[in-house]
C-alpha cells in the first residue's frame, strides 16, 4: 500500500476492457414475483451460494454469537413480514438457488444494516 493514495488523475483508463463488461439479463415484471429471477439465479447459483456462505460467517463474527443467533432465528419470520412482491421474489430466489429463505433475506438486508 502506497503512503499517499492520490498520485494523479487517471487519463487513459477509458475505454474499459470488453472482457470486464458484465452480462445482461431481462427481468420480466409480468411474470409472477416467484418466477422473475429464475433464469438469472440459475446461472449465478454457485457464486451466490459461495457469497452467502461467507456472509453468514462474517455476520457471526461481527455480531457475536448471541446477537447473530437472535437475528438468524428471526430471519424466517422477518421474511414473512416483507411486503409483496419482495417476499415472493425472495422465496423465488431461494427456490432457484437452493439457499434457505432466511439466507436470501440475510443477503438482502446486508446492504441495509452494513452501516453499523
Amino acid at each position, binding site marked *: 500500500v502506497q503512503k499517499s493514495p492520490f498520485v494523479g488523475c487517471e487519463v487513459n483508463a477509458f475505454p474499459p476492457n470488453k472482457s470486464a463488461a458484465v452480462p445482461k439479463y431481462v427481468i420480466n415484471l409480468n411474470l409472477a414475483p416467484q418466477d422473475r429471477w429464475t433464469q438469472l439465479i440459475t446461472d449465478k447459483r454457485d457464486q451466490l451460494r459461495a457469497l452467502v456462505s461467507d456472509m453468514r460467517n462474517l455476520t457471526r463474527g461481527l455480531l457475536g454469537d448471541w446477537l447473530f443467533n437472535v437475528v438468524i432465528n428471526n430471519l424466517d419470520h422477518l421474511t414473512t413480514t416483507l411486503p409483496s412482491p419482495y417476499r415472493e421474489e425472495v422465496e423465488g430466489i431461494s427456490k432457484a438457488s437452493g439457499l434457505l429463505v432466511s439466507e436470501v433475506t440475510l443477503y438482502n438486508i446486508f446492504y441495509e444494516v*452494513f452501516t453499523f
Partner: protein
Amino acid sequence: CTSIIGQDANGKLYHGRNLDFGLFLGWNPKEHTWKVAELLKPLVVQQEWQRDGKTVYESVNYAGYVGVMTAVKKDKFTFSLDERFVMEGGYVGLLEWMLLGDHKQKWNAFITREVMEGAETYEAAKHMLSHTRLLAPVYFILGGAKPGQGTIITRWRDNFHTDDLSTKLSTSSSSSSSAWFLVETNYDQWVSPPFYDDRRTPAVHCLRAAGRANMSLPLLYNVLSTRPVLNKLTTYTSLMQVNSGEIGAWLRSCDDPCWPW
C-alpha cells in the same frame, strides 16, 4: 462508493459511479483483496426490467439483491445510492422492524424499486426519495434529463429530516462555475471527508483539471479509475446517460499499489 453527476456545456447530463463494498469483511493478506468484494464481482449483472414487452428501466445489480443501487430510466432520470455511515444506522431500523414490529419504514431495496418502477419524472423521483421514512440512512444521487437536474439527497432514517435538497447543478453554461458536477462518496456534503478516506478531493480535482468542455462518459470513467476513487473495495464502475438510456458496467480490479478503501 463514489457517485458523480456531470453536466457538459450544452447541459447534457452524465452519471457514473463506483460501487465499493466489503470494508473490514475479510482481508486477504496474500492477494491484497477484500474477500466479500471479490465474491460479489461474479454476481454483478446488468438488468433490463420489462413490462408488457417494453423496457421500464435498466439497472446494475448484484444477482439476488431485489433492490436497485444503480439505474437509468430513459429520458427521465438516473439514480445511484451510496452508503451513509451514522451512529443510528440500518441495524437500528432492522431491530425496530424485527423486535418492535415497526413495518412503516421502507427498506432501501423497496423504495428504490418503487421509484424506478413508479416515478415518471425527476421531480416525482426526488419527492419519493426525500420524504419516505427509511430503515437505513443513505445518500440518493439523482440526475434528471434537463440541464440543472441533479441532486444529492442526504437521508436520515426519519421522513422529515432530509438534508441537502438544495444541492443542485447550475443551469448556467459558465465553465467557471463549480456547479457543473456533483460528487458524493460516503460523507455529508457540508463536512470535509476524513483524511483516511478522502475520495472526494481527488475526484473534484480531476474533474476540474479536465474542465467542463471535456465532460463525457470517458471522463467520468477516467475519474472513477483514479486511485483512491478506485480502490480495493471497488467491485464495478457504471456509466449512464439519461437521454440515450445508455448504461454500462465493468468489473474492476485495482492492482498494487492501491489503497484498501
